[in-house]
């Protein structure tokens, strides 16, 4: 069975280490914060200038001057720091954020990522995504394995304009967890109940399948 959004978030959360500074993109990546394993603390960076993002505020604590990069009202945790956008991206560009988790339209065997622009549709902009993928040492892409028409999103080469080139090393889909190296996707884990054959069938890009592909686990 393909993973649910919550299962994807839960599996992604296992990539986090105690003390990690983490930037989470919108969508499923945002959910990852809900599944951080016991005994692990991470600090969330929001690229509009907040290190130590907390939960949404209670109704009476809503403050227009306190938002996240998704323009949602948020809170700051005890021990947070707030700074300007140049400083925020100095932090990102300089590689100080340990983990970035974000969505994508396509990922290639070379680690290229397309996530911001579909030709023919109105282009709203890349926001901070290009900075994040160009800078982070450790990026996890979370996306469905195939698009709505069933076409694979794991490709030999991206067909959409890139967000970044040769920057992605890890991909989690609703079917599998894969690592990218030497011009191929390396199948590392499969979703419970999903066969290697199904993953092979749904992966368009060069895929390396080891003799043993364990089922994914959702706890350490």
């Amino acid at each position: 069975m393909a993973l649910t959004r919550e299962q994807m978030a839960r599996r992604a959360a296992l990539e986090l280490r105690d003390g990690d500074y983490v930037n989470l993109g919108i969508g499923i990546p945002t959910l990852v914060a809900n599944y951080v394993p016991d005994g692990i603390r991470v600090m969330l960076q929001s690229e509009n200038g907040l290190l130590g993002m907390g939960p949404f505020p209670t109704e009476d604590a809503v403050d227009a001057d306190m938002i996240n990069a998704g323009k949602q009202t948020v809170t700051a945790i005890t021990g947070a720091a707030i700074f300007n956008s140049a400083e925020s991206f100095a932090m990102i560009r300089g590689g100080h954020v340990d983990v970035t988790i974000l969505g994508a339209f396509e990922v290639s065997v070379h680690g290229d990522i397309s996530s911001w622009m579909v030709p023919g549709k109105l282009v709203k902009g890349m926001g901070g995504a290009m900075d994040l993928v160009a800078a982070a040492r450790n990026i996890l892409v979370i996306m469905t394995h195939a698009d709505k028409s069933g076409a694979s999103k794991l490709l030999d080469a991206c067909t959409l304009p890139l967000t970044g080139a040769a920057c992605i090393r890890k991909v989690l889909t609703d079917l599998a967890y894969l690592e990218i190296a030497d011009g191929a996707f390396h199948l590392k884990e499969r979703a419970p109940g999903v066969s290697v054959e199904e993953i092979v069938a749904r992966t368009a890009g060069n895929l390396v399948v080891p003799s043993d592909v364990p089922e994914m686990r959702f706890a350490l």
Partner: protein
Amino acid sequence: MNGFDKVVGSYEEALAGLSDGMTVISGGFGLCGIPEGLIAQIRRMGVRELTVVSNNCGVDGFGLGVLLEDRQIRKVIASYVGENKLFEQQLLNGDIEVELTPQGTLAEKIRAGGAGIPAFFTATGYGTPVGEGKEVRHFNGRPFILEEAITGDFAIVKAWKADRYGNAIYRHTAQNFNPMAATAGRITVMEVEEIVEPGELEPSQIHTPGIYVNRLVLGRFEKRIEQRTVRAG
């Protein structure tokens, strides 16, 4: 007072000299920390053919979005311009031009403009449409693209408190692009929630030193919220 008193008495004075075809850099992220009153004044002035540099371009009817209604903007340099139907329509009609710039590159280009750095290299955008036509150079075996600084004829900035000399602090995440914008205007105009006397702000805690501020005006702010998200109390 003296030559360092930046306070002006009205929005009219604050933006005197702004004219057609100029480049205006605006602080703010989404609708957070935007110079609401200065934007409204630009609308009242009716200046046209503006190039606006801002991370976003407001929403329909609020923030920089109001400048679209009378077609005052010719070009926008921004990282994200969703949330605005009028903008989309003018873009599709070819009435407005947009130069999409990665958010961190945009912040750094404005900082560079204020800091006398004409250009810098960054990895952001290499291999993407943003890198097309830009010089590529390798450092330590990694490719980077050359990005040039941005400066404006005017910069419009929103701070929380400033003293009469223009020394200012920002509140929470309303800081965002404002400190960089403040450095990059030939004329920098700041509107604030509160004007205090020199000495009331701790010198080492000032976000924007007054040297960057040419005119300071006391504003009033609606502070509209774009995405009101709450949790149960």
